[in-house]
């Protein structure tokens, strides 16, 4: 196990060195990424400037949800590159090479690339979250819940990317449909779930439990709800989701029959 960690860190170190080889390109990409994500929040700000309130929620409250979701998404996006590009890896026959090596293919995919440019979204999420935090009376319990919420949401997003990769065992190409759940899920979860329709909330509570990992904890942190089991245990749903996703991926490997190049 510790051996696997050592190997993972080697993968990460190589990936970072490779990306820093072209410093100017890296800087430009990161800044570009920061700009693209910053305009998202600017859009939310502009809507609040126009309308004042969103169903009783203030901009600062929404900022807490936005920041949590964005940090979680950036973390999953940065580390899940191997699964995100799995369709290409599978089609080129590169996955067969991974299977030949005496290491878990999941570990190799995890170490595929650590996308440093996601620092752009991450730092933007941190700034928004800090701005939102100023107005909150933190306790050790709510602070711990925030960390757990970010971790759980990140696991959930990671699980979605793993499922997207798993689908490639059947369809070879990873389909753009998954963007609705990854990017679309991220987009939807930046706002309080309360503003959505019932069926939509239901989907993001039961099937892709983003409401459990980020929305309910945020309600407790903001003092809208007294701390209850659904708030404290909610983020665990993200961890469970990730575990199930890896299970599905293993089933996919068993079914895998190469593209035969």
């Amino acid at each position, binding site marked *: 196990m510790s051996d696997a960690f050592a190997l993972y860190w080697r993968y990460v170190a190589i990936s970072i060195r490779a990306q820093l080889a072209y410093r100017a*390109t890296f800087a*430009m*990409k990161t800044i*570009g990424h920061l*700009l*693209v994500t910053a*305009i*998202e929040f*600017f*859009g939310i700000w*502009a*809507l609040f*400037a*126009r*309308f*004042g*309130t*969103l*169903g009783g929620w203030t901009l600062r409250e929404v900022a807490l949800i936005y920041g949590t979701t964005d940090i979680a998404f950036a973390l999953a996006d940065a580390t899940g590159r191997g699964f995100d590009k799995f369709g290409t890896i599978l089609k080129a026959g590169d996955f067969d090479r991974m299977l030949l090596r005496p290491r878990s293919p999941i570990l190799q995919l995890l170490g595929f690339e650590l996308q440093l440019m996601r620092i752009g979204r991450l730092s933007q999420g941190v700034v928004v979250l800090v701005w939102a935090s100023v107005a909150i009376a933190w306790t050790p319990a709510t602070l711990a819940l925030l960390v757990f919420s970010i971790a759980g949401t990140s696991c959930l997003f990671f699980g979605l990317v793993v499922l997207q990769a798993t689908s490639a065992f059947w369809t070879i*190409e990873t*389909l*753009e*449909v998954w*963007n*609705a759940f990854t*990017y*679309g899920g991220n*987009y*939807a979860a930046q*706002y309080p779930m309360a*503003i*959505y*329709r019932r069926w*939509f909330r239901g989907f993001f509570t039961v099937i892709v439990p983003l409401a459990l990992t980020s929305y309910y904890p945020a309600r407790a942190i903001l003092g809208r709800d007294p701390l209850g089991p659904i708030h404290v245990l909610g983020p665990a749903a993200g961890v469970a989701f990730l575990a199930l996703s890896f299970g599905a991926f293993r089933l996919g490997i068993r079914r895998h029959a190469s593209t035969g190049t």
Partner: protein
Amino acid sequence: MTGYLAIVAARFRALLQYRAAALGGLFTQVFFGLVRIMILRAFYAASTTAPISLANVTGYVWLGQATLLLIPWREDADVAEQIRSGTVVYELTRPLDLWGLWFARAVAWRTAPVFLRMVPMFVIAMLVVPAGWGLAPPPSVAAFVLWSISFGCAVLLSAALTSLMSVALMWTITGDGLPMLVATCATMFGGLVIPLPLFPGWAQPVLYALPFAGMLDLPSRVFTGDISVAHAPWVIAHQLGWTLALALLGRWLTSRGVRRLVVQGG
């Protein structure tokens, strides 16, 4: 002229091959459209003084989703590769104007995927989505005709921006920078993040002076009747004016770029 038309036709056929990708993209676009409308409805619930009506803003979102691919996300990858590898000299031997060639490619690249997505998106937004959530037909035949013209102008405007990105590569070679900047501006100032009429009042004159409003925002508002038929000719003048300006700039830069082009090898 036939030379340019042949390029448009050939690129069009090549791009229409990706039907499965278009279907997946359609689902994603419908999903995003619904989320955006739910968010806007929640904001509108608190207000009666918005500068654009809820029905019009709903139509605006659907039209934006339908013609989303008009936004110049990035430069033409094939042209970028030609400039990088130097094979762009083969293009110079053709009896066609280099900028015109790139512009013709861009027109096809912008239209084919948009048409593939627009037709089913209109069907979904007008017929499938429940009443009050969908896209209402234009208020008059005149509005529809003017929208069609304005949409055509939006394609030309978008293609002019795309070919300008290609031209810029003659200087920057591996430039991700400029295309990324243009894409960011086009998303924000084109009405894709939030509808332009909902921006603060002080920003409006600037937003509508920029070329980006001419791609999604202005045509959509002609369609829904948010911009009246009487005012629509101004929209078309705005689009054509910017297209012409960008085209002249692009051609001028191309001729300068070709003059300083150094080709290696024999």
